[in-house]
């Protein structure tokens, strides 16, 4: 089926070239990082994780979000999603690829990555994260590919796939749970030390992932002869609406606990992000933008008339995707490290090369995503005609 990714029109090739340019720039910058060290980023002794790890965290969510089309179809026999499960699985594959790449570019000694397997350490959450992420990647490749191939050949997919499909559902939950455990089990990091971190991650995942899927569906309908379907898009939109509401609710729960208890260790990080701390305010406009975007997203997706208007829905999805990205991709990590364990404020601002490398990874992911979607859509077009 791979050959289907090679046959495309001018626009397709134009888009892929556009992405490759960013991949190339990112790669060159990464070579510079390999040569100099992570010092070309804005990271410091106090904020030792930043943009890479934040994007990784966000994308684990997008990957897990793919399960929101798989689960209703296979567990609730919601037939309509049968058409789009493949899109969810392929979205998961490309997101996990980005995640793994972000981890790799974040390592100080990337050539030693295999030490994680040579010296397996079950007490380290990172060890488990590596396992669940790679497992999820493999599961989705096997499932997505075989189901699509079966569809192309006009037969039912092989029986042995069924247990794997069922397994992939809790597995999707596990990747984001384990990713949250990276943070929420660390003593002395008040911002992350909350049992609601994993649920919070999941809720934002189930908003961001399906929002991206809706956007993809709308684009696919425009550029191809395959229509993912209005009902499918509307069902996804309801999922997004619920998830974004829950996400904001969870966040407000955190705010209540921190500010009603008035425990400085928990309040200070939220203060730093939303009003600034000791005169450091770099994140304040971003965090408010994120909050407002998510509220706009709630309004647009909850009100039936605006949700049912696909143009408005597209705007809502963009808004929600951006809002959750700022929340997790900017604030979540930097906010957890500031103030530092010694209660110093040493602001972290991502550097330009760092942003360039991150853009390169995103471009790589969208390159793979486009190719995979191209294959899926071509198969759908074939079988339809």
């Amino acid at each position, binding site marked *: 089926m791979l050959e289907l990714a090679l046959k495309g029109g001018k626009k397709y090739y134009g888009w892929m070239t556009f992405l490759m340019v960013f991949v190339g720039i990112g790669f060159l910058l990464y070579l510079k990082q390999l040569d100099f060290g992570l010092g070309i980023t804005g990271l410091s002794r106090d904020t030792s994780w930043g943009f890479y790890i934040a994007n990784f965290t966000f994308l684990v969510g997008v990957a897990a979000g793919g399960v929101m089309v798989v689960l209703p179809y296979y567990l609730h026999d919601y037939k309509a999603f049968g058409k789009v499960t493949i899109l969810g699985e392929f979205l998961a594959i490309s997101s996990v690829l980005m995640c793994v790449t972000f981890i790799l570019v974040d390592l*100080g*000694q990337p050539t030693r990555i295999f*030490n994680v*397997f040579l010296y*397996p*350490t079950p*007490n380290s959450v990172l060890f488990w994260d590596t396992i669940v992420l790679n497992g999820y990647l493999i599961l989705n490749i096997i499932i997505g590919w075989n189901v699509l191939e079966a569809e192309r050949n006009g037969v039912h997919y092989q029986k042995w796939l069924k247990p794997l499909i069922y397994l992939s559902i809790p597995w999707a939950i596990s990747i984001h749970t384990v990713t949250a455990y990276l943070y929420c089990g660390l003593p002395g990091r008040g911002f992350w030390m909350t049992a609601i971190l994993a649920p919070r991650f999941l809720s934002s995942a189930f908003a961001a992932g399906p929002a991206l899927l809706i956007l993809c569906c709308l684009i696919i309908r425009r550029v191809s002869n395959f229509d993912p379907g209005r009902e499918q898009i509307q069902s996804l939109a309801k999922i997004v609406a619920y998830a974004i509401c829950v996400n904001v609710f969870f966040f407000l729960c955190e705010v209540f606990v921190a500010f009603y208890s008035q425990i*400085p260790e928990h309040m200070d990080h939220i203060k730093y992000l939303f009003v600034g701390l000791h005169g450091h305010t770099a994140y304040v406009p971003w965090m408010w933008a994120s909050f407002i975007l998510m509220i706009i997203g709630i309004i647009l997706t909850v009100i039936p008339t605006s949700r049912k208007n696909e143009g408005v829905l597209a705007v809502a999805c963009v808004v929600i995707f951006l809002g959750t990205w700022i929340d997790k991709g900017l604030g979540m990590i930097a906010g957890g490290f500031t103030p530092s364990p*010694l209660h110093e404020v040493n602001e972290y601002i991502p550097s330009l090369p760092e942003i360039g490398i991150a853009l390169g990874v995103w471009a790589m992911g969208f390159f793979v995503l486009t190719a995979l979607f191209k294959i899926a859509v071509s198969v759908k077009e074939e079988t339809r005609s």
Partner: protein
Amino acid sequence: MDSSRRRILRLFGISALALTTRPVLNAFAKEEQTTGAEVVIKEGAKSLKARQWAMVIDTRKFESEADLEPLIEACHKIHNVPALQNKNHEIKWLWGTHYHNAFPGKAARFLAEKVEHRPFLVLCNHCENPPCVRACPTKATWKREADGIVFMDFHRCIGCRFCMAACPFGARSFNYRDPRPFIKETNNKFPTRMKGVVEKCNFCAERLAVGQLPACVEVSNGALAFGDLYDPASEVRELIRTHYTIRRKQILGTEPSVYYIV
């Protein structure tokens, strides 16, 4: 050859047994620890031994940053700690800070003037229950069973910095760039580090192995004491018995082995 075969065996063993019993895992962990320690430090006949090394810092003996300088200098010099200008890239094993930074949450609104202006030495606490060790995915940092030192293997560290996020004391530094050009005088008896790995105070394990006390203790004119926490007759235990001491962020349960007399 031998060691690579053992690695592969271990990999197979763990994947088969990963979810079974704890003793199995402990056995693997133990083997790991002894091999790691042997590689880095050979114990001599004169080596000092303890169940858990500990330090007592008599902060009353330090009045200004200048009083800390010789200690920091001694540590950083023998351990090839680079002097980097960019604050983001800074590496420190031992440094001075204010009371409210060393003990956030413990500082009263009004403090004794002396305490408020006194510098406090901070370093890795060689915690008895170290979260950094729990977090490391490669066992590049581990707690030595023999003497409780939380040790680093610079050659195994993948630079993921999970240990830095896990340490609630900011004790760890990362080599954001090649540190070698920034070492004033290289001490050939101690390894220099490459870019991309984490480092921190090692309680001068290399000196203990040849019967010497840690460098900072040696030049402290008695302000720092060092000894076995589990030996009731040790100097540190004597000081702890006769003075009121505090430890950093005791509430987190990491059980720091550095005690402060305030």
